[in-house]
């Protein structure tokens, strides 16, 4: 398998503090209303416990990205390390990628009038640094992994609460939260 950088979301460790989303905003100074990373609470039908569990999601840097396939001006490219990059200077703001991505990763920038999305902080990766969201996570719930070298484990690709789409083959992997321990005295 070729190199494929991906996010590992450990929902057992995630406390829903939004630090990853804030670090992303702080690093890129996005326009008001433009958010690349979201923290989604798991619905009680999926995680029926008093304590909540979360998925921290941005772009999933898919193997066969819907955004790249539908972009009429070739504003998307996939690097050799698997990172899907949006070249905003090429974008004409047609919104086709926004409509097509099953994960809602590309968003419209109303000031630039072009789409934009998580870049996996590829300039930081190239400098040997971690993405801003991964570096900022206080619990280590968000990790950078390479699917080509990742050992088999208890991670899943399409957990409940995450749209399954085999065609685009999302790269993000998840560790599901455990059932809370009930202590009776």
């Amino acid at each position: 398998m070729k190199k494929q950088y991906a996010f590992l979301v450990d929902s057992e460790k995630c406390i829903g503090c939004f630090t990853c989303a804030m670090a992303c905003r702080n690093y890129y100074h996005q326009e008001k209303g433009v958010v690349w990373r979201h923290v989604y609470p798991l619905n009680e039908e999926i995680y029926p416990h008093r304590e909540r569990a979360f998925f921290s999601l941005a772009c999933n840097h898919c193997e066969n990205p819907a955004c790249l396939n539908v972009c009429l001006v070739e504003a998307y490219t996939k690097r050799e390390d698997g990172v899907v990059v949006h070249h905003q200077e090429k974008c004409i703001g047609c919104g086709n990628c926004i409509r097509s991505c099953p994960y809602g990763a590309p968003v419209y920038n109303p000031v630039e009038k072009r789409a934009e999305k998580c870049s996996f902080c590829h300039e930081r990766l190239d400098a040997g640094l971690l993405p801003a969201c991964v570096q900022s996570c206080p619990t280590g719930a968000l990790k950078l992994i390479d699917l080509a070298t990742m050992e088999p484990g208890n991670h899943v690709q399409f957990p409940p609460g995450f749209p399954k789409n085999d065609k685009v083959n999302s790269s993000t992997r998840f560790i599901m939260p455990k059932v809370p321990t009930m202590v009776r005295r």
Partner: protein
Amino acid sequence: MQSMELPLVLFTVLSQAAIGLVLMNAVRLHAGPGGGNARKEWTLVAALMGVGIAASLFHLGHPLESYRALAHLEKAWLSREVLAAGIFFALAAFAAFTGREKGSPVLVWASVLTGLLALLASGMTYAPPALPAVNNALPTVFFLISAVVLGAGFASWFAADGNQPLLARIFVTALVVGLVVRLTVPCAWLSGSEIMRQTGMAWLGAPLYWIHIALMAACLGVLWKNRAIPVWLPILALAGELAGRAVFFSETIHTAVNIGAPY
């Protein structure tokens, strides 16, 4: 509810009306000589497609950079749609400027071919994986029905008297098929996956959806009574298709709205 995408509503419906007109032109060629004014008809085809293409530019954040839209013909159905619509418009404009009262069969069949390709590319463009309810052949089916309904309706303005019953039959058939498809599809979605169910609920709860159904039924009622297509009826059908297309764009649920909940 997402954006109504008015420029895309206008582009898709008007372009499909133009494609439908050349389809009906081809049907009339096959049916035999029937007279009519080909030049005026081509002018309407070119005008509908031209207005549609112009409207679509308002959808872009940077309309002046739209000339780069053909860069990804290899994979992007939207690039292919732009190319096919552009060739169709060029053929229609050529026919309108150079044509005589009697139309050219070569131009008709070339336009039918590019028009159907544009319609297919449109159907594929608006069937992305993020919209499970329409990530299939349904957009192409919806668009083809719109093309035939509007094509038969507007062709009645130009066809000779001998061809009017044929056009009325096609108009009625397309309306009946359209009504059946429009009424059954959202109900079928209700028993599908969570996002399909939500899409079915959203469509059935949208006033514009019922306006579309009511206008299609009204067109059928008028045809039932008159047995011919009154000159104003295509405008009523066009209003219905615009309402229906607005529902298609605004009420089809995106998978991203449900992240964290069951699918």
